[in-house]
């Protein structure tokens, strides 16, 4: 149990000890509560037999148990606060480790890209882009006027096609809805038939 390369730290064990103490306190409280309830019963029984002395003793015992109970309540609260602070501290510790790790990596990455390098790279890129532009210009210069005309014609054709596609659909609906209103106005019995048919299809 827990001796093979366990992920359990000494912190965990310390927390467990606290939790066990909490469980024990809770069990103790349960015990006190049952005892206190019993004393009340004893007092009631004694009073029925007119034995005031026993009843008083039982009630005193009960009072004492109740005092114990409230004391353990305070202890429980203490324990719980302690365990929660430990848990929270552990979370903070992990968070700190995480941030440290992130920082380290960020620094390493920065080492690999010095400002000079980046500046030179950006210059090179700008040069390359300029060079590319020059090539494009030279190439497009080679196109004849006929080619240009063809290109423009194709562009116009595509634009026209897109225009047709984007036109709103031919309003069929308007036509149908008129039909329906006529139907309703003309014949109510027809509607009843319409309602019945889907019911027949059900089974």
């Amino acid at each position, binding site marked *: *149990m*827990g001796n093979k390369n*366990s992920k*359990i730290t000494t912190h*965990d064990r310390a927390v*467990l*000890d606290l*939790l*066990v103490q*909490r469980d024990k306190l809770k069990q103790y409280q349960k015990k006190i509560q049952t005892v206190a309830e019993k004393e009340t019963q004893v007092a009631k029984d004694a009073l029925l037999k007119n034995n005031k002395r026993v009843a008083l003793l039982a009630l005193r015992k009960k009072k004492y148990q109740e005092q114990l109970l409230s004391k353990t309540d305070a202890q429980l609260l203490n324990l719980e606060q302690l365990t929660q602070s430990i848990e929270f501290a552990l979370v903070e510790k992990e968070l700190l480790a995480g941030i440290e790790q992130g920082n380290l990596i960020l620094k390493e990455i920065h080492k690999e890209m010095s400002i000079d390098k980046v500046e030179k790279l950006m210059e090179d890129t700008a040069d390359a882009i300029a060079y590319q532009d020059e090539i494009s210009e030279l190439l497009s210069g080679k196109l004849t006027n006929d080619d240009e005309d063809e290109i423009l014609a194709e562009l116009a054709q595509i634009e026209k096609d897109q225009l047709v596609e984007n036109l709103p659909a031919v309003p069929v609906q308007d036509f149908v809805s008129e039909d329906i209103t006529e139907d309703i106005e003309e014949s109510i019995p027809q509607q009843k038939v319409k309602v019945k048919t889907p019911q027949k299809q059900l089974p």
Partner: protein
Amino acid sequence: MSNAFVFPSIHDFPPFYTFQPTQTTWQNQVALWSEIILSYYRHHKLYRLELSESLNSELFHNKGINRRLKLDTLQMIIDEMVKQGMAEWDSPPKKTTAIIYWRKPEEWATLINNWVFEAGITNSILTVYEIAHGDTTEGLEFHKLDQIILMKSLDILVKKGVAQTFQGTSADDIGVKFFGIN
């Protein structure tokens, strides 16, 4: 107990309480008895069956028809249930107490693991006591789960690598840490 358990009609059938020597009849009898035991235990959330004690309970003693199951017949029934993974003898080879699995330890393990995930207790530490008796699990299915079944379910989670059990300063108190994978 809260609301009464409704026994099936076979429970009022006198021959049901005597061992049936015909193989097929016996198998049928065992199947029906184990079904009744499982649903009775599920209904009342019971886990342990003390054989001689329970022979006086309404489960095995039908006062209405004045029939009672015999101890050796009950032992044979439990033996069959053990074979099928529905029960386990508490301390074999003694056949005095059985643990009834109306939910298998694997299923309990899944329930517990789901709860851990949903309650966000991943990576924190719990005591075995608080899983079964703590305020946080009150109203949950595994509240007041039998200690032996609970330990078995936790062992399953440990083997899967989603939890680890460990001891504090005193060896009696066992804690669990859940890692929340799977």
